[in-house]
């Protein structure tokens, strides 16, 4: 039984890997079984240690019988990544033996994520979580639009499951990537090329929400950015129903564009941001972002992405220049 250290809200534990498979180019989906994982919300994240668990002793390995050790062997890469890496929870389910099943989706961009991509079933990885503040789900009469770009899509998958379990029906997904082979989701059918939402993306928990897919190069769905799809969705709505709540996650430029657009269209918006993190639990004060604060003389203060976020309401956030996204 792995040692579980924690309270109701957070735990640090060595967990077994159930699966680690490519989901598209450069991306892997990693499923973990986490005993004693506390209640969690979509938008929250976990901190993974991207190296061998246990005491941080130097790694000693036998010389392979068939020649030289490879620099890409996981055991040699393990001494390099130092800090944990944060990953949004992409899905959560009840695992067979009472532990929570967790999915994270990682894009291989450096030595930590490269180590993760080599995980195999029955390996273990050390995890801390759930951390941060997740999405606030609006009242039932508010339509929801989940807007995700690339590796920003995973937290919206967990959100889709949660919305489905809560019986929400007016939910649309808008998922974009540079190209079809960089979409970290499975397509159940061909997405429309004209920005029409249709059920074409595999969502967790049997949620069957319609989705608009966009790609920069037009290799799947609507050519262009997620903002084009959001405009199309809004036009088709023709003002029916309450103003929608957009839940967005993706690259910073995408978030600012979505923020600007939702303001123009009169939609509400929450942004799940990404920052370089150290401890991930609010002590090192590294992952700062500016938020509006009328109590401060300057009108803003530093907030922490790991504890005050990573989900912020659009109107709270200022960009790093101290100017609100226009």
């Amino acid at each position, binding site marked *: 039984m792995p040692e579980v250290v924690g309270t109701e809200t957070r735990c640090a534990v060595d967990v077994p890997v159930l699966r680690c498979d490519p989901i598209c180019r450069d991306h892997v989906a990693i499923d973990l079984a986490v005993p004693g994982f506390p209640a969690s919300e979509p938008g929250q994240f976990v901190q993974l240690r991207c190296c061998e668990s246990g005491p*941080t002793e130097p790694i000693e390995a036998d010389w392979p019988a068939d020649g030289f050790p490879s620099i890409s062997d996981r055991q040699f890469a393990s001494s390099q990544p130092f800090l*944990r890496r944060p990953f949004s929870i992409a899905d959560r389910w009840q695992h067979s033996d009472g532990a929570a099943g967790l999915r994270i989706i990682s894009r291989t961009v450096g030595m930590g994520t490269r180590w993760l991509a080599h995980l195999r079933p029955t390996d273990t990885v050390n995890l801390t979580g759930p951390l941060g503040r997740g999405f606030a789900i609006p009242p039932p009469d508010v339509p929801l639009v989940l807007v995700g770009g690339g590796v920003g899509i995973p937290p919206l998958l967990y959100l889709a499951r949660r919305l489905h379990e809560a019986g929400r029906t007016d939910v649309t997904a808008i998922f974009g990537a540079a190209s079809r082979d960089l979409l970290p989701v499975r397509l159940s059918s061909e997405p429309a090329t004209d920005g029409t939402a249709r059920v074409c993306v595999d969502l967790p928990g049997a949620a069957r929400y319609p989705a608009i897919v966009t790609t920069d190069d037009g290799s799947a769905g609507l050519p262009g950015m997620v903002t084009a799809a959001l405009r199309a969705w809004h036009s088709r709505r023709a003002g029916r129903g309450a103003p929608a709540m957009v839940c967005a996650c993706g690259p910073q430029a995408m978030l600012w564009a979505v923020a600007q657009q939702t303001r123009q269209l009169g939609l509400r918006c929450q942004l799940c941001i990404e920052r370089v993190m150290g401890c991930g*639990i609010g002590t090192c*004060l590294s992952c*700062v972002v500016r938020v509006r604060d009328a109590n401060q003389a300057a009108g803003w203060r*530093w907030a922490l992405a790991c504890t005050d976020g990573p989900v912020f309401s659009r109107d709270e956030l200022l960009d790093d220049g101290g100017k609100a996204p226009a």
Partner: protein
Amino acid sequence: MALTADAPDDPRLVTNLAGLPLRTPVLTASGTCGYGPEYAGLLDYRRLGGFTTKSVTRQERTGNPPERIVEVRAGLLNAIGLANVGLERFLAEKVPFLRTMPTTVLVNVAGHSTDDYVAVAAALDEHPCVAAIELNVSCPNVADGLMFGTDPVLLRQVVAEVRQALRRARLVVKLSPNVTNIADLARAAIDGGAEVLSLINTYVGLSVDVRTWCPHLGNVTGGLSGPAIKPLALYNVHRVYREVARDARVPIIGMGGIQNTNDAIEFFLAGASAVAVGTALFVDPTLPVKIAAGLAEYVTARGLDNVAALTGQLRTG
């Protein structure tokens, strides 16, 4: 410290630093563990020797613009900028939790004038839950702070004035390695009345983004911590112990890149009477407890009674 009826203290680990009682000789280092509530539940405070808070300054400080940290090989560069809530809010908002913590509490104090240091130290001295003040004269990210930490005359003066203002709390002085001769600074701190020395703080470093040609840090430079500095920290502990602290009978809290029991033992042998874990908490928050357990096992395996028997036992012929 709030007393608890839990498991009795392990006699192999119980430590006393010039009147500062520690359940184990393993503490957390300032700046890596916040003010207490953040690690509750992840780190068992009942099995921690001491907890060192984030630096407190007289006025609130918002800190540096991002980025504030960058990972480097075997370590971390940080330029947080002494961001903290300031003395008034610290007393009102943070002290109540510190009062409940079942471990020895050290409050790290930073400032940019002697007046600042004295005012903050004196105010903290009023609170019995604050067992010690750790004087931070060595933060490399604040222009003024560097002055006290690199000039023996100024250091002696500020230590003496703070010592005079304290009636109860112990005085720990944390030394910077960004100096020509750390033994001179150690001597000055002891002359001023330091009861315990803690070393080392971070080294000034730089990391550059070759895509943008800009420094990774908003502050340009930052303080280097983590495994990369362990040999340097050990050298400084050894030097201060041999040249100053041993004969002056001033105990040392050694820190810099400690990640496991072996690392901690190295610091004891070099001259430390206690150790602190900082950056490694980000990797494994339970390390201080694991290391204490490892030290207890080692002490028994070597036929010793207590970790104190290891202090300064480095064999140099």
